[in-house]
Structure formats: structure tokens, C-alpha cells
């Protein structure tokens, strides 16, 4: 959660660009990652992330503060935008690992990071999961959100989130083993 987040939200609601800028810079990486794992390609993820934050800026006056960070609200916008994206484009979710090629990885400023082959495999396998499994895996393991935050973002109970997480990880392990067996 961003430091003094509530104060920044109140200021952003009054139209303070600097406060919204702080919120944007704090949350854009995780929303971008979430989007990237749900759509095909870096360019689409960037466009959607831009739309998500544009919508957040335009509608922040309607946002009602609760005990959770604003990221829950941003994830809800993201999910709606992604649904709209697929509805409009009528695209099938590609499971092609070519969506995450070396060129893209370089663009994500990971040049100095040790991107292993395992990571690439997992990244492509996450896209094979059911959409709600993807959401929970990304939020829980990549964004370190707690179950309460995830349940708020996905409009599900905490128990349901735990169950989805359990199933998703098992599913992912099966896919990983299967993928290794094929290779």
C-alpha cells in the first residue's frame, strides 16, 4: 500500500495531478503485469494499462475509500477492460509462448535480471489456466496480495479465493510436469 494513500486519494479526487501521479507510479507495474498475463503481447498490455489508469483518473471522484488499498479498485477496472478487450476484438486467448519472446522480455527492463527458462515456461503455462485461476495466481504470488485484498478485487469470499489458489497451483504443477514430459 502506498504511504499516505488515503490522503493522496483525497487529493486526487480534488483533481491534484501530483497525488494521482504518485498513485499511478506505485501501482502501474502490478496492473501492467496483471494485464500482460491476461492478454497477448506487450503492446496490448500497455494500451490496456493506459486505459485502466485513464479510467481511474476520470472516475476517481466516484471511488469510495475502504480498508483495502486502491489496488482492489484498479484490478476491478483492469478485469472489466480485459473483458471488453476480448469482447471487442473477439480474439481467442492465445496460448502460444511466442507472445513472450526474448525481445519483449528485453523491453520490460529485465536486461539485468536472471530470467530462467523455468520462468518463461511458467509464464506461458499461467495463460493456460482458467481466467479466475490466473487472477488469483498473479495477485497472490506475483503481487503478494493477501487473501482479503484478492477477495475484494475479485468479489469473492476469502474461502473461495483460497480454494481457487489451491486448485490453480495444482493445475499449474500438472501443466508444468506435462510440459516437461513433452520436452
Amino acid at each position, binding site marked *: 500500500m502506498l504511504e499516505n494513500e488515503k490522503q493522496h486519494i483525497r487529493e486526487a479526487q480534488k*483533481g491534484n*495531478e501530483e497525488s*494521482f*501521479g504518485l498513485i*499511478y*507510479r506505485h501501482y*502501474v*507495474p502490478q496492473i*501492467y*503485469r496483471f494485464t*500482460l*498475463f491476461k492478454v497477448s503481447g506487450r503492446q496490448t498490455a*500497455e494500451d490496456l*494499462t*493506459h486505459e485502466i*489508469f*485513464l479510467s481511474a*483518473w*476520470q*472516475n*476517481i*471522484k*466516484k471511488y469510495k475509500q475502504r480498508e483495502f488499498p486502491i489496488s482492489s479498485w484498479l484490478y476491478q477496472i483492469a478485469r472489466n477492460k480485459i473483458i471488453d478487450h476480448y469482447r471487442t476484438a473477439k480474439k481467442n486467448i492465445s496460448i502460444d509462448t511466442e507472445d513472450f519472446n526474448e525481445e519483449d*522480455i528485453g*523491453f*520490460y*527492463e*529485465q536486461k539485468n*535480471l536472471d*530470467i*530462467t527458462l*523455468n*520462468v518463461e515456461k*511458467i*509464464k506461458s503455462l*499461467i495463460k493456460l489456466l482458467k481466467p479466475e485461476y490466473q487472477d488469483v*495466481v498473479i495477485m497472490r*504470488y*506475483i*503481487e*503478494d496480495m493477501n487473501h482479503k485484498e484478492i477477495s475484494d478485487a475479485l468479489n469473492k469470499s476469502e474461502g473461495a479465493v483460497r480454494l481457487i489458489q489451491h486448485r490453480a*497451483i495444482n493445475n*499449474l*504443477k500438472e501443466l*508444468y*510436469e506435462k510440459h*516437461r514430459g513433452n520436452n
Partner: protein
Amino acid sequence: MKNIEEIIKQLKKIGPSEGYKAESLRLILSAPQNPESRLSLNVFELFKFAAALGLTGMLIMISTTDMFPGLNARLLSPVLLSNLDEQKIQNEANQVDIKITVAEAKYYNDSVRKVAVALDETAKNGPGHLNSSILEKELQGLDFNSQNSEDINELLNKLTM
């Protein structure tokens, strides 16, 4: 296999470029914000209040008038509102009155007989003999139409006058 959760965590290192972030934020902030939609909320609240008020008024009209003969007060609340029927109340009052009169007459009739027996016994045996069960038994054996009874009654009347 390396712990799959640990592998997933490495994906956290992915992020958008600084150039993208700066350009995107600049474009976002150049867009106007939507006004807070208090109006729609107020209109909805107002509608709810008006609907509640209207329904309450309609219920009162139905309950207190003959606008809808098939759906009047008796049908809506036959138990509670029956007390508001003036004619029925009058009838009930009359009936209650009659019942009281009859009950009183019966009481006086019975009590006169009991008093007569009690006085008779008292005259003969003293006031100690006033057991109600014995009096009842003796009451059954008395003949009120005999000449003696008439005499006693007359005597008692003189005493009490």
C-alpha cells in the same frame, strides 16, 4: 522441480518501461476528470422516499375509505379494525348490558334464598352453623311456598326496615 511458487515470484520483476510510464501518465493527466455523480444517487434516494410515501398514503386511503370495497379495512385487518365499527360496538354494549342484568337477577334470587336459610339456622342454632355446604343441602329441602316461609319473610322484612 524447483518450487513452482518461487518461480512464479520471479515474474514480479517484469514491469513497464520508464518511458512508457511517463508518456502514459502525461496523457492521462491531460484528460478531464468526470464530475462526481451525486445527482443520480440523490434522484434514486428521492424516488425511494416518494415511493414509500405514496404507498403509505395509498394504504391509508384503502383502509379508511370505501374506494376499494373489495379491499377495505375488514379485509386488510379484520381483527384490529373490527373495533372501529360503531354499530358493532353498540350491539356489543347492549348485549353486555343484558347479560349483566340477567346475571344480577339470578344472583339476587339465589342470595335471597341463602340468606333466608342462614337466618333461619342462626335463629335456631346460633351463628356458628353457617357452613356453606350444609346450607346448600338444607336449601334444597326448604319449601319457599309454605305459609311458614311467607311468615318468615314478612318477619324479616319488618326487621330490616
